[in-house]
């Protein structure tokens, strides 16, 4: 009884139910474990392309997606695995794609950098820094044109905010009040370059003022805080008030890409951020505010590990494309395998 009471109280305090909280934790855990295994699988030769791991940034992807509806659409950047899984993508198909199999999300043609889930409205990771920003803006334009309440979300980094695509898109979206969330994951670095060496401002969100749209800074390692600003921003967008720039302050635990030892980062900085690991912080919230038990928390982790075991096994069994499959999909009307001359 006390247990149930505590939970009710806590539920109110955190604005979510324990079940919802455990689901957020499950997604964050899934992303982290997915990335850790991907690194090992790459080392073992299963993944031919490069990987940009998002470990440490899980709370952003999961918090944002928690505010979305089924018909919303998303674009992403090179560090997109978390964004996909936050949206509910299937790790099995993701691994199959990383393994370059024909049943992967992109039929083995895309890999990490271009991964999509069309059914979830996930329009793709992107190999071009800033490249996803105009795409989401355009998607939002079409959503608005057809009178839908759906919103578009685009994820990008601090470094991407220096690209012309950022500027032009935010201006367009603000001007036309397009339903789009510009979500900047500020992890303090673009590749090996610190933020202070690529821009003068401390907050990317402060750039919003240049276009007349609201800019919000949020703790990107606090999944509930991210969820809250995303709810406000989607609410704004759905009611025709236009876009929001959300800057989530976060940190990538690993290097820029798998293999980068990230020696350019001060040890103290890394250590401080590891203490703010969202996968340490959020279980505490669940425990303290929602009364989650050790058993419940352990169960999340165990179910994730079991799922990934199965997913990887499945993915490893998937068929490779044939060489000639390379000739398909150049044009929609050339599915017959003959490239258009």
């Amino acid at each position, binding site marked *: 009884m006390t247990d149930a009471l505590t939970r009710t109280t806590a539920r109110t305090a955190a604005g979510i139910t324990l079940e919802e909280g455990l689901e957020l934790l499950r997604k964050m855990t899934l992303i982290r474990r997915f990335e850790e295994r991907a690194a090992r699988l790459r080392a073992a030769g299963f993944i031919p392309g490069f990987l940009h791991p998002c470990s440490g940034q899980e709370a952003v992807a999961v918090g944002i997606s928690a505010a979305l509806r089924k018909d919303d*659409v998303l*674009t992403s950047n090179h560090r997109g695995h978390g964004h996909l899984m936050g949206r509910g993508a299937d790790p099995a198909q993701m691994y199959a794609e990383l393994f370059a199999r024909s049943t*992967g*999300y*992109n*039929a*083995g*043609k*895309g890999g990490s950098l*271009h991964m*999509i889930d*069309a059914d979830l*409205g996930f*329009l*793709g990771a*992107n*190999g*071009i820094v800033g*490249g996803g*920003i*105009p*795409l*989401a*803006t*355009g*998607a*939002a*334009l*079409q*959503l608005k*044109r*057809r009178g839908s309440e759906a919103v*578009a979300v685009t994820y990008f980094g601090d470094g991407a905010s220096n690209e*012309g*695509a950022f500027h*032009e*898109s935010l*201006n*367009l979206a603000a*001007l*036309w009040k397009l339903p789009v969330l510009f979500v900047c994951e500020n992890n303090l670095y673009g590749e090996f370059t610190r933020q202070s060496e690529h821009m003068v401002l401390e907050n990317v969100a402060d750039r919003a003022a240049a276009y007349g749209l609201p800019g919000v800074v949020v703790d990107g390692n606090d999944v509930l805080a991210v969820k809250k600003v995303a709810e406000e921003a989607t609410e704004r967008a759905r009611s025709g008030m236009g876009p929001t720039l959300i800057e989530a302050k976060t940190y990538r635990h690993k290097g820029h890409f798998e293999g980068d030892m990230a020696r350019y980062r001060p040890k103290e900085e890394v250590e401080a951020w590891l203490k703010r690991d969202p996968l340490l912080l959020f279980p505490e919230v669940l425990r303290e505010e929602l009364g989650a038990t050790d058993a419940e928390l352990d169960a999340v982790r165990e179910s994730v590990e079991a799922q990934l075991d199965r997913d990887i096994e499945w993915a490893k069994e998937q068929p490779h494309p044939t060489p000639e499959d390379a000739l*398909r*999909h*150049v*044009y*929609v*009307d050339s*599915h017959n395998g003959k*490239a*258009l*001359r």
Partner: protein
Amino acid sequence: MTNFTFADGIRQAIAEEMDRDPAVFVIGEDVGESGGVFGVTKGLWDRFGPDRLWDSPISEEAIVGAAVGASLVGGRPIAEIMFSDFSMLAMDMIVNQAAKTHYMTGGKLSSPMVVRMITGTNGSTGAQHSQSLESWFTHVPGLKVVAPSTPEDAKGLLKSAIRDPDPVMFFEHKGLYTGRGGPAGDVVEVDPIPFGVGRIHRAGTDVTVVSYLKTREYALAAAETLAEEGISCEVFDPRTLVPFDYEGLRASLEKTGRLLIAHEAPARGGFGAEIAAWAAENCHDVLRSPVMRVGGHNTPIPYAPVMEQFVLPMTERITDSIRALVQNPSRQLQSL
């Protein structure tokens, strides 16, 4: 005689497709209320209003990017690039995004959209407002490339482009519009014209002259002059560069045994190189003499009219080249 200009063809194709399909819309700089710098979209604003014509800030990357993004979720955008030279600013969205969407996603998504590229040299607009870059886009798998030379073709091909499931680069030579587009001319019914089917504008037996866009006019004029000299030219307009009507061209070469390609773009790296190379590979058996290209000279486009006319492959240069080709079939030829 009907008063139906190239600009009318474009405008009518857009209007008819917008009537047919609410997903179709136009986005670009001053395409809406003002009717465009060339007057091509004049009158559409009153009929269709701001939800179908998006007057954009001067942001080419965002314009084309918005088109790509919209196309991913059911839109059928037509992005206008006021001078194709400005497409340099939107190249990532064209080449890295739109062209590759379908492929990179393993066929799961596609990007059905049109980029209207107003192109070519027309009256001392200088090096940054006159370029012909169509060959670039033929080198990007995933893009289709259309290059009409008549009002009817403009209308029929643009309709097809708008309905096409893939991204289409649609080139409009500003020298073909006829002035500033003027008031809406007569309406001519034109059905969608399938891609990949060339058109023989004049039949002939001595030489096949391939040309498109504005240069087709010069090629036809050259053919007329040469007819008086007893040289019979077949003027072949491919109309679409990707896909290209190689069957049609081969059939023509089987008749004539000689090939000359004329286009405004600089000869080096122009699409004429691709046609010539294809013929050298595949029509060695029917070619009686060397192939020949007549292109723009390998220079930026100069301002002064006397220089501008000189670098373009106009009637006289085409005429002289055909004459040289036909009269000296075995000699090694230097392009004129």
